[in-house]
């Protein structure tokens, strides 16, 4: 097959399936050959998934995790986008706040766990706070850079049609920056899904993160641990896939033309 050739339709499914099958085989035979008593084989993980699915607690855990992400990520969007637009719009505000943002941004939300527990106690609020923190910064940064990279030609056109400053922000700057804001929000959603699992291991006693840690703690059920991990991966993939569909909306599609 020449490297320039477009992969055929069947190839695009065939090779990934081969890669996955290969990995499963390596996993399976590693477990068999090393005769480990602790780490589960793919088959026992599959049974574990079936066992979890048959118990209603799995669905409750999934709903709890998704609820926390929805609230934390939702708050980050509701607060982050207006705040980010404001920062991008007023250079003086950005210059004042930016060093603080850049200082807080590299701190992993995991490091905030003790602080979150002091603020909110052990419970939902602490977990939601951590998700909010993790999702806030990518949204802020995307808004600031999105607003500052709006072509001056669009602003000038808006001014020419007699728009006031707030109209200019709402009708020109925001829609022009929206594709970049969506990219930031997509990254933020990915981080939120990472953070919810970590937060649930410590701050609460429900959700998929709790399911992982609880399966280990109550009887070292590593088949259930790995099963829960796979479920986390699948839901994360589905969230990202769902979010990417927004890039197809016609009023933002222009901003994604050359993006992958």
């Amino acid at each position, binding site marked *: 097959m020449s490297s320039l050739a477009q992969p055929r339709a069947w190839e695009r499914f065939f090779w990934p399936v081969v890669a996955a099958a290969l990995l499963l085989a390596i996993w399976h035979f590693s477990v068999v050959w090393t005769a480990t008593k602790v780490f589960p084989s793919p088959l026992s993980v599959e049974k574990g998934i079936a066992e979890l699915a048959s118990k209603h607690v799995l669905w409750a855990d999934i709903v709890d995790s998704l609820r926390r992400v929805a609230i934390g990520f939702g708050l980050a969007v509701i607060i982050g986008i207006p705040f980010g637009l404001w920062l991008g719009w007023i250079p003086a505000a950005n210059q004042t706040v930016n060093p603080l943002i850049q200082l807080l941004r590299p701190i992993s939300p995991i490091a905030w766990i003790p602080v979150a527990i002091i603020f909110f106690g052990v419970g939902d609020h602490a977990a939601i706070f951590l998700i909010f923190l993790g999702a806030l910064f990518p949204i802020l940064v995307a808004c600031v850079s999105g607003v500052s990279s709006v072509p001056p*030609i669009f602003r*000038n*056109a808006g*001014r*020419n*049609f007699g728009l006031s400053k707030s109209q200019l922000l709402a009708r020109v700057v925001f*829609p022009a920056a929206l594709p970049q804001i969506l990219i930031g929000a997509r990254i933020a959603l990915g981080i939120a899904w990472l953070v919810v699992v970590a937060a649930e291991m410590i701050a609460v006693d429900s959700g998929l993160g709790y399911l992982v840690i609880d399966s280990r703690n109550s009887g070292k059920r590593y088949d259930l641990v790995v099963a829960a991990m796979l479920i986390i991966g699948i839901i994360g993939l589905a969230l990202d896939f769902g979010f990417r569909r927004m890039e197809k909306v016609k*009023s*933002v599609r*222009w901003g994604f033309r050359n993006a992958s």
Partner: protein
Amino acid sequence: MLQAEDTVPDTRSAPKLRAEHLGVVYDRDGQLLPVLEDINLDVQNGEFVCLVGPSGCGKSTLLNAMAGFLSPTSGSVSIDGEIVMGPDPRRILVFQERGVFPWLTVEGNIGFGLSKLSRAERTQRIAHYVKTVRLEGFENSYPSDLSGGMKQRLQVARALAVNPDILFLDEPFGALDSITRVIMRGELLRIWQTERRTIFFVTHDIDEAVQLADRVVVLSSRPAQIKDILTIDLPHPRNISSSRYLELRDELLKQIGLAYEI
């Protein structure tokens, strides 16, 4: 909408647009760079004026100062006797490219400046200008699905929709291929003849200027001054192989400092 024309009679004594001793000096890293020097120009109501000059001489600067996007360092621009202090929907600047809003449909773009109108009026105005620039059937298309020429027609429609008395065009066809450019000139002339706006048109294309303008203003190289103003005394439609056309074209080429032969 016709009130402005009633109160300001179209007489030679009261120009639509007047630049008086207009000067612009840029400050590039502390170094003063004079771009325009003592520009004096009157444009009459309904006139089609083209501005030509060597590349980088300050044509766009002059246009931006007239449209109110740039405050002059000295002198002034006045429209209907009123000093220009900033951009205004009564005079719309059409950009070379990427001027239309990619997040709005054709209808959304044309209706952009019409939010103060009632819904019925807005719909009617949009339909009228969709037809004027011949974009019927593309009302709900986004600019990314339009060709370069269609996008420029859309930009002109968006500008005309707010009923401006002056259109400033900054090399509006400069990014188009040569065939589309010729077609667009015909379209613009047709629109100008039916709508009768004052048009101030920047171009680097000598033929474009002679084909379109009532008068052609020639700028010198930087710091730009008005070198000459040529009246194109040819009726439309213009025969571009007539001797008078070629004469005027040669005159313009000479003004810009280009040889007759290459």
